[in-house]
């Protein structure tokens, strides 16, 4: 009896599964498919929203303005990773084997990216990463993997140069206990050591909203710059609470090392006046427009969503989609080998500069293109670029 039930249930389930899967195979049209991976649920779902916006704008541009590529429309399939590597691996596997996408782009979690590149490499499908910063993504030297976005060591290089240029004396590193936080903390420590600048570091729990204890340790150390490698809401709390315990910009400036949290619409709601003179790393600035594409992106964004773009990750995904479309067009087909060859020859203007992937194998620069990273400071609620000097729109203010 028991067996009978169990098997009839199982069989009916299996049969439904087969039926539905065959139906979905039949319903396919002629489009060029691009897969996107990124978190749409879970703690980093904000990135998913930014990605959705960027995808919409990119599709409008590619399909409507340009009329598609190779005479076909581009279709984007956006799979959720939940910010979880296991799910991310499944997601990209689905995009490649089930949806048969020609190329995959996206991702903003280093841990997910590391899981995904293995799969893209195994199936030999090109994959352009937008916002996963960990060095290994490109230093592993996989032929199929590209990154058109920042990498930890590139960002840290920028930050160290800035520290040297502004002559900071004593640095405190505060890093969340995630792959990104710990990775960038280690690189920063190495960089500071090389420059002979004294530093100290604290690790914080990623879920934490409470930093009084950590901040009091910082006060005891008395640095003149705090490198805050905390992503998400935590960094808002950190900045607001730093002000509460009496850490003012006059004692120590705060550099937020990720970028988007300082640009989120809630930033000022959450930190209040404590946000004044906060610095952050960003590939995007409200006034500085490095290219024509950046201007177009901003105008299209404002028209479509009736507000200014805030999370620069919508622009990152926009960029990689343009790069992908350009490469497919030049490759002349959806063949992976051809696309990789085209990507290696890319010279395309996107919203944050002219993309040209590095080709030195065995280093982090292989298949890597980092947009110029700006260091921006909030001055009277205006974004002022303070570094690099070529792009600067104002001087760094230290607070009184």
């Amino acid at each position: 009896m028991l067996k009978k039930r169990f098997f009839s249930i199982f069989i009916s389930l299996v049969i439904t599964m087969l039926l539905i899967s065959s139906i979905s195979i039949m319903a396919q049209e002629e489009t060029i498919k691009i897969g996107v991976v990124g978190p749409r649920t879970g703690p980093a779902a904000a990135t998913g929203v930014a990605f959705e916006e960027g995808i919409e704008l990119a599709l409008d541009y590619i399909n409507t303005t340009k009329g598609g590529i190779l005479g076909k429309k581009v279709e984007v399939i956006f799979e959720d990773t939940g910010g979880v590597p296991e799910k991310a691996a499944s997601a990209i596997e689905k995009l490649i084997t089930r949806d048969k996408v020609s190329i995959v782009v996206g991702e903003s979690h280093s841990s997910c990216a590391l899981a995904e590149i293995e799969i893209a490499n195994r199936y030999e499908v090109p994959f352009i990463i937008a916002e996963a910063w960990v060095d290994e993504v490109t230093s592993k030297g996989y032929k199929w993997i590209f990154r058109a976005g920042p990498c930890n060591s590139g960002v840290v290089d920028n930050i160290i140069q800035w520290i040297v240029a502004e002559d900071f004396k004593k640095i405190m590193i505060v890093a969340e206990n995630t792959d990104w936080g710990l990775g960038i903390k280690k690189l920063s420590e190495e960089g500071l050591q090389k420059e002979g600048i004294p530093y100290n570091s604290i690790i914080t729990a990623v879920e934490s909203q409470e930093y009084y204890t950590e901040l009091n340790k910082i006060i005891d150390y008395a640095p003149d710059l705090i490198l805050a490698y905390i992503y998400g809401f935590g960094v808002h709390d950190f900045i607001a609470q730093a002000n509460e315990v009496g850490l003012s910009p006059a004692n120590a400036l705060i550099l937020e090392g990720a970028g988007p949290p300082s640009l989120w619409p809630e930033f000022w709601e959450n930190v209040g006046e404590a946000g004044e003179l906060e610095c952050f790393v960003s590939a995007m600035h409200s006034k500085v427009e490095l290219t024509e594409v950046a201007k177009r992106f901003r105008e299209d964004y404002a028209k479509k969503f009736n507000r200014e773009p805030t999370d620069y990750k919508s622009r990152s995904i926009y960029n990689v989609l343009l790069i992908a479309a350009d490469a497919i067009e030049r490759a002349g087909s959806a063949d992976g080998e051809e696309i990789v060859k085209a990507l290696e020859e890319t010279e395309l203007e996107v919203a944050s500069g002219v993309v040209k992937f590095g080709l030195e194998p065995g280093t982090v620069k292989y298949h890597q293109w980092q947009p110029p990273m700006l260091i921006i400071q909030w001055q009277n609620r205006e974004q002022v670029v303070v570094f690099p000097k070529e792009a600067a729109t104002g001087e760094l203010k230290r607070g009184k």
Partner: protein
Amino acid sequence: MSSLFVNIFNGIVIGTIYALSALGISLILGAMNVMNFAHGEFYIFGAYFSYFFSRSLGFSPLIAILLSLGLIFWIGFLVEKTLIHSTYGNLMDSLIITFILSIVLQNIALIIFGPYPKKPPSWIIGSINVLDLFYYSSQRLITFIVAVLLLILFFIVMNKTWFGKIVRAISADREVASLMGINCDKVNSFSFGFGVALAGVAGAIISPIFGVTPMGGVGIGLTSVVVVVLGGMGSFKGCVIGGLLLGIIENIGVAYISSGYRNIFGFIILILILLFRPSGLFGTTIK
């Protein structure tokens, strides 16, 4: 030395909020023998509602908190009627149902309020120099005072009013209470609403400090459970002392042991308490 003071002081402030939230779980556990796993989610909804009323509709913080309190109470009432009611007498069923409910509520919050963090406006800006030892946020101090007032109010309600007496009677002996003609069903819906409203109000008053995200309830929910066990299941006094203790231990632990391990201290205490004194500091064992 001053950092020790600030850590203890801050532990007391945070601990008061823990206590307030944990009292809700304790009330529901005592009065209904239901372990509410979705407590943290009512906490974030309290915060979201007060955000909505104050930030989007522009009400004053007090009115926003009162409105969200009422709303949470009403939702709790409905949840009890539809979901919890059928699990009476089975602690495990209620645990499973509320566990699933917590996942559902988290995702509802994500869809309604979006993934970005929300923070109602502060009631007061700036910070105060405490005894020339350290600076402390005025908002936190005011929240602390409000939380202490709410705790006092809670004990008055429990000890002096008709509702409190009935709840205590039911907690002591359900059968006797129903023999005495108390309508347990009504009291149950009421106490569930009241219990989750405590979480909601804790969320509403603390949100100007920490803000709120869809997943933000998981931590406080688990912490509240730890506090309830630490204080002793069913003991209100235990909840208050457990909350304060945990707040202080966490802060000291972060300061002197490891800040990456902030959340582990509570769980270690939970297991130690369950092993050596399962009835907690002030509790009686629950069958």
